């Protein structure tokens, strides 16, 4: 019972959703399922948030290494929760939009969340640089092709590409770097994308079928017998 019911649920839900596409009266079932998922996700957050409090609370309680940082995390979490749920300093009071201008929630968002998020993202520029230096090396044929394609595209996005091949006559305009870059994007790139996309879709179909048919149930922690 413990093991069979989930497999049956997966089968029924999956099968019904697939079939529903072909029957207009049932066409909208998918919507309801999406809505259910949203609600389930919030309930699950009680587990996640609870886990966050438990882990960091334990660290502080036991004075483990770096417990002070756990205290910072926990404070941040609670302050943000309070600011949002009680709408602290919200100009429109408790009925206003939670992210109204001037509220503590929005202030924290703009002065803390925003700079942290965008800086973390901006670190990528540095990592792209180190990866270009370290990883983009012509170790074999595949790596060389990747490298050359990347190089041409990069060149095509700079004025350098325009000057470098500006002398190429109009009748061979494809060999001018900016045109070549566009050609790469619209021809071989398109072909590769398509092959990857079709492949992914077939992979998804096969994997989904394995899930629906109960062939694959590792995710339930139930090993296949």
């Amino acid at each position: 019972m413990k093991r069979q019911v989930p497999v049956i649920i997966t089968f029924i839900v999956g099968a019904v959703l697939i079939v529903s596409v072909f029957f207009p009266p049932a066409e909208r079932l998918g919507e309801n399922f999406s809505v259910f998922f949203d609600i389930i996700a919030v309930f699950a957050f009680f587990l996640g948030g609870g886990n966050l409090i438990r882990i960091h609370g334990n660290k502080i309680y036991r004075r483990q290494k770096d417990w002070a940082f756990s205290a910072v995390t926990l404070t941040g979490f609670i302050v943000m929760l309070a600011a949002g749920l009680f709408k602290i300093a919200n100009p429109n009071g408790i009925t206003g939009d939670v992210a109204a201008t001037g509220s503590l929630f929005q202030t924290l968002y703009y002065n803390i969340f925003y700079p942290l998020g965008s800086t973390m993202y901006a670190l990528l520029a540095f990592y792209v640089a180190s990866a270009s230096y370290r990883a983009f090396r012509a170790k074999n044929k595949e790596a060389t092709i990747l490298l050359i394609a990347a190089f041409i595209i990069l060149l095509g996005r700079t004025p350098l590409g325009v000057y470098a091949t500006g002398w190429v006559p109009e009748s061979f305009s494809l060999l001018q770097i900016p045109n070549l870059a566009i050609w790469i994007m619209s021809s071989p790139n398109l072909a590769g994308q398509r092959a990857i996309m079709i492949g992914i879709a077939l992979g998804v179909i096969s994997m989904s079928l394995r899930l629906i048919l109960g062939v694959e149930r590792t995710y339930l922690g139930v090993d296949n017998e």
Partner: protein
Amino acid sequence: MNKWGLIISLTIIAAGLLYLFIKSIRGRDVERRFIFLFMGLAVAVPILFNISFSEKATPIVKAAFDKIENLPPGSKILISFDYDPAMAPEVNPMTDAFVRHAMAKGHRVYFMNLWATGQPMVATAIDRIIKTEFPEKKNGVDYVNLGYKAGGTGVLNVIITDIRKMYLTDVNGINLDSLPIMNGIRSLRDMDLLISVGGGLPGVKEWVLFAGDPGHIPVVGGCAAVSAPLLYPYYPNQLMGLLGGIKGAAEYESELKRKYPRFAETPQPGIKMMGPQTMAHLVIMAFIIFGNISYFVLKSRGE
């Protein structure tokens, strides 16, 4: 100032490149931190000296521009801000340009988000652009902010048949039925154009797959440069036009400026950001070259 700035930046960058070149010729690997520092400089210097280049719209950007330009005034355009603060520097110039264009052309604009973190972005865009540059436009008549709903593609699955199943009110809690702009709008299918600006998931691709395709509604996209190659296959059949990264935004801005002289003096963050961007590109290319030089030097020594 501009000229000297250019000279100084080029000198600094040239010195760094020379150092890297010598290192790589000797077959030594450069420490990561030096690469990081150099990269930082290559971007910072052009920003400080405000170096920029001129732009011309490529066909795919022009297609996006023309799509909005050719809709009759009063058309219904939905703009979805599907990004977060982290992505904002790259895609905000696009939403700015789209909003300016739609407002100047007299379209009706419906804002929404599929990303929770994008919600405040709409509010700032309304404050910064509509309220200051188009004070005559009225909330609820010329534009409306529907706000954010969780569920990503799930939201699209719902609102393609019925917007009110997801959105009972706008972001300020006003019942949709009392807003003139919502008259006769039942679902996404009543929109004349969908614009999604975003770079992750859900983003432009989901708008195409879950809204544009099933509803036969034209979609125009704006995305971080990283997602652009992924979206090329959808152009021009499923996606009417696409702004890829800052370059796309800069091209759109230049087109907007050309067509509407009133925008000549408004900020053009896209065009402005292309300066440091170009410099960074050159430096990255140098890194790739030097990395390979040092690889081959090392390899020839090893054998």
